[in-house]
């Protein structure tokens, strides 16, 4: 089991990046998912979607070189790549909801073995609003959850989510610091273990039932 916080994060985002294909349009959620952009494999050309209204989200501008008319979905200074396009919020969500977004990568509070996702509120505690999350999860062709496997030692991959859902049965893949898990019609399929991680550690850190792939591999990260 990886112990170092930074290494955990690196393993997750590197592994998520391997899921992206040439030409993909990808939306990276705020927080850890945005780091995926730093690990896109060579030869793979993707476009990033920013739900406030453009595709072609580029690198963060250097301090002092910010353009106040370009922010990302977190409201922070951003840039646009050549060949990008700005549009209004209706078009932004036409892209998301119309099935034109290839991949969305989001964090989670809980995921369950039916592919349900809870990532937008904790009643009585944290209610930031769903923003574009419900649209992204319901609309994207592929929904990848990137998160630490547990929260303070408690499993986040459950038999059944008990927090309010973001969407029903929409998650396709879960990538954590311990494992890669596919959501299949038969249940959760464990396909890869993280380096330095044992099958037993994954099973004990997961509340949901896991089907172990016959081809169980170690992540190449």
């Amino acid at each position: 089991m990886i112990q170092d916080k930074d290494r955990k994060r690196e393993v997750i985002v590197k592994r998520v990046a391997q899921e992206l294909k040439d030409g993909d349009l990808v939306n990276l959620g705020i927080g850890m998912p945005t780091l995926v952009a730093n690990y896109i494999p060579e030869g793979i050309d993707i476009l990033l979607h920013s739900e406030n209204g453009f595709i072609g989200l580029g690198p963060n501008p250097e301090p002092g070189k910010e353009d106040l008319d370009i922010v990302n979905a977190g409201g922070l200074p951003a840039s646009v790549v050549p060949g990008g396009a700005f549009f209004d919020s209706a078009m932004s969500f036409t892209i998301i909801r119309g099935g034109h977004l290839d991949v969305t990568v989001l964090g989670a509070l809980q995921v369950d073995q039916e592919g349900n996702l809870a990532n937008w509120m904790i009643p009585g505690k944290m209610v930031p609003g769903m923003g574009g999350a419900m649209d992204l999860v319901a609309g994207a062709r592929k929904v990848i959850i990137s998160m630490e496997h547990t929260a303070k030692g408690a499993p986040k991959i459950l038999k059944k989510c008990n927090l309010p859902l973001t969407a029903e049965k929409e998650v396709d893949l879960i990538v954590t610091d311990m494992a890669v898990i596919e959501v299949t019609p038969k249940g959760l399929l464990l396909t890869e273990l993280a380096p330095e991680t044992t099958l037993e550690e994954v099973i004990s850190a997961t509340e949901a039932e896991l089907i172990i792939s016959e081809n169980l591999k170690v992540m190449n990260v």
Partner: protein
Amino acid sequence: MDKIRTIDEAASYIKDGMTVAVGGFIGAGTPEKLIDAVIAKGIKDLTLICNDTALPDKGVGKWVVNRVVSRIIVSHIGTNPETGRQMNAGELEVELVPQGTLAERVRAAGAGLGGILTPTGIGTVAEEGKEKITVNGKEYLLELPLKADVALLKGSIVDKKGNIYYKKATRNFNPLMATAADLVIVEAEKIVEVGELDPTDVMTPSIFVDIIAK
């Protein structure tokens, strides 16, 4: 018809209790001067339709801090802790709407639609109180139009007839809000003569705009 007014004159069209739609995304593309003028006038009890409540010192976030609004319809309040605080204290009514649904509801009002069917929110609390309609075996939520008394926009270039061009990521909800209010006020970053904006480049046609504020 001269549509140009001062910021202060423009803000005077907003009255206590009105529903006001404001363009912008965490402050980008928001008419900051109009926001400030409304605060200065001591206007109260507004219902706000906006993507988010920005930051405490930015955009419509200032309306929350200064108690201009008593009800908000938004997709996200996480960037403004004061919104959550007032909500939890029962001082501010908050209706949370998925961002894409918010865009479609405002657009529906502007386009004369009675509603739209969306899969977003199925199986979540966003279902509550809404009619479900099944089309070809798939369930959708019926989402209803969302209209305002006044819309406040920020335009990068506005001609004197009211045609608007929005630069880069400042467009966001602005063109949608422009279609869905009885009175539309645009805060112009730059005003140009009629004819200077290429008709192909206009993003909000002049007919939607009642007042150009500068």
